[in-house]
Structures are given as C-alpha cells and as structure tokens.
C-alpha cells in the first residue's frame, strides 16, 4: 500500500543504518513530507546545537502522496536546523527524486553524525549503502549526477546533491536534483556539506499500491482538467514563473538596486517574453501538466552553448532588479552558475546587491572588494562575486556567512541596508505597498520568505465574494476581506490561511503551483481529501488536513521558540517603515509599512493561531492539536 514506506535512520559517524515503519497514527498526525519532518526535527535535534556541527540532523523526505496519482506529487523536502538562521531549516524541490525514493521503499531519511571522509548514499529497493565520494567532492551539481549514474551503471538513477558551495559550507548553499530543481532556502546544502555527505542516489522498482486505482485515475483526470483550465497554469506552462515579472515590475513591486527603487526601467530583456525567445521548450516535474521549467541554451558570451534550465522569477530579481542589471545574458549566466555551484539564487543575488549598495555608499572600498567595481549594473562584477562566494574568496568569504554574520564582519552602518527577516534575505519583491505580503515575510518560520505564507492572489484584486469563498474553507471565517492589496484589514487571516495551505501541500508532497498560490481556482483542501482517500486509503476530511497542517506549523513554531525566537524576530527591517516607495503606478508610490498597523496584524495573526501575545502557542492550542507532550520520541 501507499503507506508502507519506511523511515531510515542513517548514522554517518558509525555507518549504522536502521529502518522503521511509520505507524498510521503518525500519518494521521503529520501525513509525511515537511509535516513529519518537523515532528522528527523537534524530536531528534537537541536544543542549541551548532547547525554545522555533527549534532545537527538532516531530514530528507517525500510527501505522503509522492509518486501517486496526485498531480505533481514530485516534491522532496529537506529539513534541519538552518546554518543560515539558526531556526527552522526547510526547503522543498520538484523533479523526480521523491517518487524514486518511494519506489525504493522509503519516505523519510534521518541523517545523523558526520562521515570521516566524503560519502554519498546509494539507495536501491530497501537497501542503503554508504559509498566513498572522494572522487566527486569538488564536482558541480551537474557533473556529480552524471558521474554517479555512470559509476552505478543505471541512467534512471535519481540524485540529490550539493555543489561546491555546500562543500565549502556557504551558509545558503542549496540541495539540488536534476539540472535546476533546488531545495533552495535556509542552507540545507551547507548542512549536508558539514556531514561530508555529497549526494544521495536512489533507484526504486517496487510497487506503490494504490488504494483505489480506478477511482484515482478518474479523479486525477478531473483535477488535471481543473489545473490546466486555469489561465495561470497555461501562462506558466508557456513562460514559467517569469510571467509574474510583468505584473510586479509594471506596478512597482520589485526591489531595485537592493532596496532603493521599486521598479526596473528600460529592462525589456528581463521580460518573460525575452526569456521565452531563447527557451528551447518546457520541462515538467514528475506527473505535472503545468511544465513550468524553461529549457535554454546560453546564446552568447563566455558560456555560449551551455544548456541549463530556468530561470525562475526569483532569478529575474536576483540577477536583474536587485543588482540593477538589464541583460538577458546576465540572468541566464548567473542562473547557470548558481545551479552548478549549488547556491540559493535568491540569497546570493540579494547579498551581492546589498554589498553593491554598501560600495556605492562608500561603506565598502575597492580594497574590501578586492578591486571589484561593485557599482549597480556591473554584470561582470556580479558574476565574479558568485564565483567568490561559492569558493569563499575575499569578500565572497564574508558573504558566504549569510547576511547577519556578514553585516557584523563588515560593520559600520552596513546592517542598515540589509533586507532580511530572521537572518534570511528577502525575495526581490518590495512589500511596502502590500501589507499582507509584508506580514507573510515578517512571520514566516524559516525567515524572510515568499513561499511560506504569501497571499499572492492578493495582487489580483479579486472580488470579495471570490476571496470569501476561498478563505472560509475548510474553517469558517467571517472577518473582513478586501480586494485591495494596499489594505491591512483581513490580511492576517489570509496569511494564516495560505501558511496552512502551503504546509498542507508540503505534507502531501505536491506542488504549490497546483493550489491557491498563483491561481484562485486551483485545487485545495477538498480535492486533497479525495486524492488522499483514492490513493492511500487515508480517510481525512478537508478540516482534518487543515488541522494536520496547523499541527505541523506549530511544531515549527515550537522548534523556533526552543532555539530562542521571540516576537521581535517576527518583524521587518526599518527600511520598510522609514523609506517610502518612490516610483511605480500612482497607487504604490509613497508607500511604507505602518509600524502600529503591522503590530496589530501580528497580534491578530497570533490570535488566529491560538498563540499568546509573545507568539508562543498556548497550552490549549497544543492540547487541541495533540502535541502538548512533544518531544514524544515515537519515531
């Protein structure tokens, strides 16, 4: 059956490997994926451990619907204490790894200790082997996968790997699979690197028995029609996430020159349509009809002829808006470099843009930059900085430590110009005109982040009735809703709802693009309840799934609080309050976030969660969710 996949506990220091089944009781509490990973994290990571020390634990998982007839049941989750923030580390990627892991018999890997020398894991049909990786240490993300496939003699092996950045313990190194699928945020690549774990190779040919195959086929067909009939899916299937750029940049909702402007002018080559011209087709993750991944070949320059995939919306920001660059080639090259080095594109671009502002303001000198002219728009300098960060050279070595540590090292007023929450840099979005989105990044469990709780459909000015229909299920809500993204009213609930929605899909192991993230008509709790039943036999109502997601999110909160998080960490940097937006459409000009109103939103957001005014879950909340006795050490 679809629920018989196991947990493997892999101790790299000793080489011991143990496997355990996952009791249905635990499934009903956390499902799998990110949810169960959060349970495991809270139970296996001792408070206060050094994130790059051998006491930290890495978690790799598939969602409970991974590899089943639920559309895009492709997601892999990586967890651990974040080397970047010291709080919850959590990152999620598409591709083909998670289904393969399930065909090989496993849902969750708990990786402890530290290997003496570089190793990789080879997992095949219930068997796990720890193999020497000295010969692939230092290889890029793309090279590593080719070498392992060649070495093991099977071209269908799926691999997750770190690149040189992860080996060099760059605190925002990512974990990748395939050409561009990245568990990007919170430095999970550095975590694997600190364990001397280069990669995990997996191949499975074991059945995942579906509970009701005929009904699962029929129902999936229906859900596919729901997904593909949405305009947003069609647009994304042609242009990928870069399609978002047109709407946000036109309005003035992007960070330019770090945080000094909110619109990039004269940037025709940054448009999705320009990227589409060099795209050589679209690719999809496992079982997905949205196929939002562009395939491209770099047309000119030093990297001409190189194949890669993407770039995503994040890379338009990281390699154009934030550093003030405007050429398509720069976006394509930088995107390629972060892919082969295994760097979080978003954090890397954000940090480079920050030091560019410091350079222009005279806080950093030519001596500090090693002679690099870090003025905004200097594409060669941006490319050079990517190399230096990955290799930890000069200023790159300082940035490799992440925003807060770098600000401390650089000193002076450098921290004033940093755009981060909880020590994690923000996407290139500018949330000053959008209080709902601002609340999302301020409170997200892993730091400044648009994929934790962003009510992105807020940008569409949807009719109130449409919003009410979405946001009053599966739990009733009769508070205010507003169609104006500049409003503060009702946004706390939207953020809470989206946060629970995204946690749910991460437990299920399906893609956020198949839910109410970018499209208001896409599947939600009701559909997931049926998908779960037909595929796995789990009988959980939409409300049950909501509660599971809430429970998992509370585990994240408990983890963060145990690591010292306070209400002050759920806050934005001063620039959001003190520097008004200067350009864009009239409706977004002159905007700042109001401190008092944000404070009130946070109060309301806590209240929706059943947390006290300090953001600590109340005992009755934990009791309602059945997690008052955690850590319970069941698994």
């Amino acid at each position, binding site marked *: 059956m*679809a629920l018989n996949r196991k947990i493997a506990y892999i101790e790299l220091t000793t080489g011991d490997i143990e496997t355990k089944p996952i009791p249905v009781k635990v499934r009903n509490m956390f499902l799998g994926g990110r949810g169960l990973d959060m349970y495991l994290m809270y139970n296996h990571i001792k408070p206060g451990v050094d994130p790059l020390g051998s006491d930290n634990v890495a978690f790799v998982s598939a969602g409970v619907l991974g*590899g*089943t*007839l639920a559309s895009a049941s492709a997601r892999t989750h990586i967890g651990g204490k974040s080397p970047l923030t010291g709080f919850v580390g959590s990152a999620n990627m598409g591709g*083909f790894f998670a*289904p393969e892991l399930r*065909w090989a018999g496993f849902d969750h890997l708990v990786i402890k200790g530290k290997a003496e020398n570089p190793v990789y894991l080879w997992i095949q049909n219930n068997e796990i082997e720890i193999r020497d990786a000295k010969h692939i240490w230092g290889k890029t993300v*793309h090279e590593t*996968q*080719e070498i392992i496939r060649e070495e093991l003699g099977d*071209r269908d092996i799926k691999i997750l790997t770190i690149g040189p950045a992860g080996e060099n313990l760059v605190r925002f190194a990512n974990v990748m699979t*395939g*050409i561009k699928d990245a568990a990007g945020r919170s430095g999970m690549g550095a975590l694997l690197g600190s364990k001397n774990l280069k990669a995990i190779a997996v191949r499975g*040919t*074991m*059945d*995942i*028995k*579906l509970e009701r*195959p005929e009904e*699962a*086929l029929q129902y999936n*067909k229906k859900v*596919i029609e729901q997904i*593909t009939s949405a305009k947003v899916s069609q647009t994304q299937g042609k242009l990928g996430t870069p399609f978002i750029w047109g709407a946000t940049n036109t309005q003035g909702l992007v960070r330019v020159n770090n945080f000094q402007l909110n619109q990039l002018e004269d940037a025709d080559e940054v448009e999705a349509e320009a990227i589409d011209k060099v795209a*050589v*087709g*679209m*690719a*999809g*993750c*496992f*079982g*997905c*009809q949205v*196929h939002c991944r562009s*395939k491209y070949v770099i047309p000119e320059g030093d990297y001409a002829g190189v*194949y890669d*995939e993407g770039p995503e919306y994040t890379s338009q920001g990281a390699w154009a808006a934030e550093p003030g660059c405007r050429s398509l080639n720069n976006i394509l090259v930088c995107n390629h470099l972060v892919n082969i080095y295994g760097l979080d594109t978003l954090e890397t671009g954000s940090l480079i843009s920050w030091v560019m502002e410091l350079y222009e303001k005279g806080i950093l000198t030519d001596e500090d930059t090693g002679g690099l002219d870090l003025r905004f728009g200097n594409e060669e300098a941006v490319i050079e900085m990517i190399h230096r960060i990955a290799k930890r050279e000069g200023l790159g070595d300082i940035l490799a430590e992440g925003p807060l540590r770098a600000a401390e090292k650089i000193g002076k007023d450098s921290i004033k110009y940093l755009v981060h929450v909880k020590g994690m840099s923000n996407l290139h979005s500018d949330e000053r005109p959008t209080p709902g989105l601002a609340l999302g990044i301020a409170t997200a469990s892993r730091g400044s982040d648009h994929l934790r709780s962003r009510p992105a459909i807020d940008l569409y000015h949807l009719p109130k009735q449409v919003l009410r229909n979405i946001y009053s299920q599966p739990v009733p809500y009769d508070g205010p809703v507003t169609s104006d993204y500049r409003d503060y009213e009702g946004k706390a609930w939207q953020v809470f709802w989206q946060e629970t929605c995204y946690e749910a899909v991460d437990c299920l192991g399906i893609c956020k693009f198949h839910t109410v993230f970018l499209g208001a008509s896409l599947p939600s709790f009701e559909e997931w309840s049926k998908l779960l039943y037909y595929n796995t036999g789990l009988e959980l109502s939409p409300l049950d799934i909501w509660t599971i997601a809430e429970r998992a999110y509370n585990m994240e909160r408990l983890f963060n609080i145990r690591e010292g998080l306070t209400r002050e960490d759920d806050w934005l940097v001063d620039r959001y309050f003190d520097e008004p937006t200067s350009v864009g459409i009239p409706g977004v000009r002159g905007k700042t976030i109001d401190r008092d109103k944000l404070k009130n939103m946070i109060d309301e957001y806590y209240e929706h969660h059943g947390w006290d005014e300090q953001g600590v879950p109340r005992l009755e909340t934990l009791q309602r969710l059945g997690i008052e006795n955690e850590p319970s050490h069941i698994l």
Partner: protein
Amino acid sequence: MAKVLILDYEKCTGCRLCELVCSVKHEGVSNPARSRVKIVKWESEGRYVPMSCQQCESAPCQAVCPVKALSRDETLNRVLVDYDACIGCRMCIAICPFGAMSFDVLAKRIIKCDLCDGVPLCADFCEVGAIQYVDAGQQSTIKQVTAADKLSEIMQKVAQAISAV
C-alpha cells in the same frame, strides 16, 4: 480505420505521467518499472523521448516467438501476447528494434503496450500531445502539416530577405 499511437519527442516535457498511468491501469500500482511506455531521457540536454510499441505490421517479436504467443489483432491494429502460450524466453525483447518489449521482474513475464484495448491512457493523460492516438492514415498528415508549416515559414523569410535586397 484502426488507430495508432504517435510519439512526438518535440512535445514531451518529460513528466512521465504516461508511465504512471500505464502502470496503474495495467497493474493497479504506481511503478514505472512496470509501465509499457517509457520516457528515455538525456537530462543534461533536456531531451526526452517517449518510447512504446509501434505495433509493427511485420512484427519481429511475432516472427521470433518460438511458441507463437504473439499474434496480430487487426481490429485494434496491435500485437497481443497470449500469456498461456508464452514461455518467458525473452526472445521478443532481444529482437525488438525499439526496446518496446520489456520484462516485468515482479510478475516474471513480458509486458508490452496493448493500447489499453482502444483507449490508451498515456495518450489520454498527455496534455501536451506528445503521445496521441490517431487514425493510422492521419500520422503522416500531421507530420506533413508540421513540416509544411516550417518549410513555408523558411520560404517566406527567404522571400522577404530577397525582396529587402
């Protein structure tokens, strides 16, 4: 007229939903290793090629089978396996020029595409049309139109370039 499966690598996004629905339809499980269709990938080039039985008119598998376990079903234009007759010698796998005959190691038998008895799910679920189920005579028409489209586009560009000179 009997229909045929058309496999078009130019349209394939590599999602492998065809493999999934095939294994669910035939075995009731998710397991691409037991699928009759397979996406062969060159990941580092972004090249994905759907492969399945071509239901050859003059089928090598049928010719090589020592026990005549393979036969032609003219109604659905397919090659069928008689599992009562099949001895599992795998000669059909050895001779198939497309690698379309495979061996299911769990069921210990050969497997091949049976066109889902006239409603092939791989085509039904392939939203991009990389796998289509069309009238046999249509296959070349579709190719002709696509080729003609490209050709006329080139000709127009050439004509424009000449007139510009």
